[in-house]
């Protein structure tokens, strides 16, 4: 998979526009990284170097911040990101079993995209929908609650056939 991004591309222009709109505000590195991840899907090293240069901060600082926060990913993710809640309420209701079943059905490691690039599985700590435990969030909006491991294959099928 080609991970380098053409520097002149439209994506960089979008990022530039965002950075320019924040002119003068202090402490915007994290905001910029959020936007960059939205635009590029993840945070490849070239983008981090670009951000460092643009904001005039050391590259080491940008890497330091990116690797500190769970939300930032330096690796590409699957087209459908499956976030599995492993908060307390979901855990006592079997969230860990849902998590394992997803990994097994897709044959992937956590955070790694599946071979076809369609899915990646991410354990998350509490999605704040505890009363529906155990819950799974696919993409940004599709919540599934009160799941059992046996619901997993059909869920995957639904998104595979999309």
């Amino acid at each position, binding site marked *: 998979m080609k991970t380098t991004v053409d520097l002149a591309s439209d994506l960089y222009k979008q990022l530039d526009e965002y950075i320019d709109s924040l002119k003068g505000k*202090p*402490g*915007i*590195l*994290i*905001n910029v*990284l*959020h936007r960059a991840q939205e635009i590029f899907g993840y945070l490849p090293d070239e983008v981090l170097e670009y951000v460092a240069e643009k904001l005039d901060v050391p590259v080491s600082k940008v890497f*330091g*911040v990116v690797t*500190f*926060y*769970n*939300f*930032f990913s330096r690796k590409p993710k699957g087209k459908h990101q499956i976030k599995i809640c*492993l*908060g*307390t*309420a*979901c*855990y*006592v*209701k*079997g969230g860990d*079993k849902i998590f*394992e*079943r997803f990994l*097994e*059905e897709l044959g992937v490691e956590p955070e790694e995209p599946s071979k076809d690039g369609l899915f990646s599985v991410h354990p*998350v*700590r*509490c*999605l*704040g*929908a*505890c*009363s*529906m*435990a155990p*819950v799974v969030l696919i993409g*940004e909006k599709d*919540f*599934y*609650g009160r799941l*059992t*491991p*046996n619901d997993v294959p059909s869920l995957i099928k639904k998104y595979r056939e999309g």
Partner: protein
Amino acid sequence: MPVAVVANTVLICAGGACISAGEKSVKQVFEEKLKEFALDSVVRVVETGCMGACNLGPLAVIYPEGIFYQKLTPQAAEEVVVEHLLKGRPVEKYLYKGPAGEVKAKAQEELPFFKRQVKIATRNLGVIDPTDIEEYIGRDGYFALMKALKEMTPEQVISEIKASGLRGRGGAGFPTGLKWDICRRNEADQKFIICNADEGDPGAFMDRSILEGDPHSVLEGMAIGAYAIGASKGFIYVRAEYPLAIERLNIAIEQAREYGFLGERVLGTDFSFDIEIRIGAGAFVCGEETALMASIEGERGQPRVKPPYPVESGLWGKPTVINNVETLANVPPIILKGSEWFASIGTETSKGTKVFALAGKVRNTGLVEVPMGITLRELIYEIGGGIPGGKRFKAVQTGGPSGGCIPADYLDVTVDYESLKELGTIMGSGGMVVMDEDDCMVDVAKFFLGFTVDESCGKCTPCREGTKVMYDILEKITSGEGTREDLEKLKELAQFISEASLCGLGQTAPNPVLSTMKYFWDEYVAHVEEKRCPAKRCKALIRYVIDPERCVGCTACARVCPVNAITGEVRKPHEIDPEICTRCGSCMEVCRFDAISKVSP
């Protein structure tokens, strides 16, 4: 032109749980059908914040009668429009029914779940459209800000909050008025007020619900706080995991500016104040105030030594007050109704109410706001409806990874900051996860330690290394390799880590282990001495077996087993090969003959 008179209002709960239960499609059908029957000019459909009864969702309440519909589907919505809104006959099958099947059409007035609540911080949740500032104003919104700015000095605001006895709802319970007072006294050219909306405790979702369901109450609380301490700028630090809360906050801030509640010269006074949202990036430690400020400054979110406290040297070195979402939502009613009213609710040391998120093995899950001093039994049994599935209550976990598990013996303890602390746990942000006999307390302790290991920022050694060692010992115990010495070592490490860690995360990280050891010592002993997991949860210590007497050979289990560990001929008893079996439990779930059970050892 004649003005259409609204005959009915349909309030649809758009809280997180109802959305995940299909609220959007229900709302769509309501709107489509109302249009179809030309009722759309006389029936208003409003999406509200969380109504609290999350396990009954999607919910809708139809006014003026207050008829409460539960577990709605698109099909049900259509029936409600046709029968109730068009013909005036409530549709019984979608109403709440009690244990004996009796219909409770106005569940919000009839059920203990609703009746026992006293709503202050969540007063507008489920009642107003959070995206419409006028609805907030219609419920006395921004009246408190007006009163503070026009009739009170900052000192008077502070003494009112002090007299109310309001304490921080984020966990530690520091008196809010005192915090404001110290910050006010610190001279500086610039001060800040921050709303801590980095709700990271797993099992707690009250802040999310308030932000989504009533964002203006938080903005108003911040503005009043800013006036009291002399700040001109505020930040809301909110989790990236809460996109809807961020969206609603943005809308609310925009509207508040438009109406002159934020910005230059608020309400025509000399007070100027504006708010900016900063989004977290998935680090639990950022709930700690010094780490949170580092994150707002665009740095790694690592805590620093206190003192100096934020009220002395906070964001960019300026005096800063950091208040939690729920704390701020309590501020406007206190200013408006007075400290005496607020202080009349609750206990001697813990005034007012607390919002709890009931979750786990309890019948009525959801969000409840109750007076401080309520007992755990009232919370779990009267309001929560008890434990489902005929299971036995085992423990309730409060305070998230910094808290502990309270066993059945203490169900009659009243809930306030002090009494929970005495039991070895904390109030925390108000998450309450109920556990039953199937939950292993050693495993629960391991779960929380795993969380802390992941979330430890790595700055100080006791937390970074110590929690990892504790986790490894717990892992050893739950895999049946533990010894008596390991238990002693765990205790020793716990003591050391809580004394030597830099910030609250490390200092409280051993609590889940200490409290479970204190109340469930026998379970630890069973794991190390008998290699037995009494709750039959720890995979290494259990096996799944099929009872040949009960198994009819339907093959359901064999078909669902993901690793083909089950063999047997059709209509003959099946068998599970323990060597292949991964203990996923799928077979037990599909067996309709109760033939599969867990044994330990």
